[in-house]
């Protein structure tokens, strides 16, 4: 049982891990594109959280590499989400649906 006190790394890693696994589960199991996107966001945020945590507990806390990376992640995640939603909209316009099972014209 890891010690999850706020001034120890383990707790953050645990949360991040849970987030990541949840995200993976989501993108594998969800049939709805939005659901998958949410899963991806979860994974990205798990990574961001870890960056921040690692940065906080890094031996050389002087240069905030981790925290910087976390900020980058947040920004890019937002951009990614924007593009993704735009594409979902394009799909919805043509298919009237964003169900991944329903939008399967491309296949072997």
């Amino acid at each position: 049982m890891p010690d999850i006190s706020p001034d120890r790394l383990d707790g953050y890693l645990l949360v991040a891990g849970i987030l990541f696994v949840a995200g993976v589960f989501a993108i594998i199991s969800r049939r709805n594109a939005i659901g998958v996107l949410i899963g991806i966001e979860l994974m990205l945020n798990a990574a961001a959280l870890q960056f921040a945590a690692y940065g906080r507990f890094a031996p050389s806390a002087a240069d905030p590499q981790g925290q910087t990376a976390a900020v980058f992640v947040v920004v890019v995640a937002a951009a990614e989400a924007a593009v993704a939603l735009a594409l979902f909209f394009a799909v919805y316009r043509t298919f009237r649906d964003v169900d991944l099972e329903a939008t399967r014209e491309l296949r072997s």
Partner: protein
Amino acid sequence: MIAFAEAFPLALVRPEAALTGGLLAILASDLSPGANARRLGPVLGIVSCAVAMWLACAAPVGNVGTMLAIDGVTTLARLLILPLTAFLLLGGMGERRHGNDTGAWSASVVAVGLGALIAAAAANFVALWLGLELVALAGYTLVAFRGGDRRSAEAGMKFVLFGGAVSAVMLFGISHVYGATGHLDFVGIGAAFASGAPVLAGFALLLAGAGIAYKLTLAPFHFFAPDVYQGSPAIAVATVSTLPKIAAAAALVRILMTAVPPSLLAPVTLGGAIAVLAAVSMLLASFTALVQRDAKRIVAFSGIGHGAAVVLAIGCLPSREAAAAAGFYLLTYVGSNAGALLCLSVLERARGSTSLADLAGSWRSQPWVSSLLCLFLLSLAGVPPLAGFLGKWGVLQQALAAGMAPGGSSAMVVAVLLFLLATAVSAWSYLLVVRAVVFAEPAAANERTQRREPVALATRVVLGVSTVATFGFGLWLDGLVALARML
């Protein structure tokens, strides 16, 4: 200001800067009223590529902090990426004359090129990830560019979801690498490994590698490729199937050279594993391609196989000849591949799709384009004296040298034999296209099968260049040596 200049030696990254400038110019021209961005965009892009190329030839070598490393690999990558970007823009000029879009297309292409440049020069995982993300985001838009087209939209959606997931995995890995080593820059990570980093770092590195494998369409991160390529415009495929591969290959080379301890790299261990991975990808690609019924899907699987070939060469590091072989392979691949996709783009406009059924007998209506398509495909198959052969030659030579060297891994030799098997099988899959385009009769003699689609001058130029390359590099053995000398 001075301080910034010292901290950030702009001289090293002039080409990237030039391309950024081009990108901004295109976007600006898009905003400015009256200016015909659709015509202006490509021109601006090509000009900026030319400038960047000029700058790249004279670029000094050095490091931009711990973020970017401008070395032989970077230079080689630049010399591949910049001309390719220019030709893709030119091709777009020819192929998208009737598109009603603004300069967005050109902007996206330039953005992909810029991202590829950054990723290729990255000496730091964050920089690498950002570069790859730029490539990805711009790529998503290109793929889904054909507005109102079901398949194009679906392709875009699948692309973004798959890409997003993989990039998240990569990021997760990176974060653990950082946590385990306290560094995000390759050199630091390498040092940490050397001083005995926790085993967790190794796994983390593996996860981080997922992003690169995905860009190289290496199994098991190749699944998106067939669907995306099939759904998106051929000219977009030409972009997303070439530029990211170059960037990822360069990044992989640098990571293996700096972040991974040589002890681990020696062909015996990691090299062998990489070789097996590559061989699996090749076999999977070549066999799966046999049952495809769409030319672009076949091109996609061929791309998977060729990416694997590049990885096989990289598995022979640290010899610089290996890196050169990978570079030369990419050179021949992008030449033939872009050419083939440009031909397909023309035929796609003529026949409405690139399914083999629709392409049947297009040789009658478009003899030149069809013949060139077959030529490029045979080059991809690696039939001498076409360029693809020499690419194969370099890779096989490296792999076999690594395998036959005293203490070399037999996995390399096995990989070589599997590579050859895959070559024969994939040749067959290319012939499926040749068969449809040249041998088969048109399904029905209607106006669609009769129509002779005009080929724009820009397209002709690009086709001419790739034709020259396809023939010119075929027997240019010293090219391999020259590249090795460049590194």
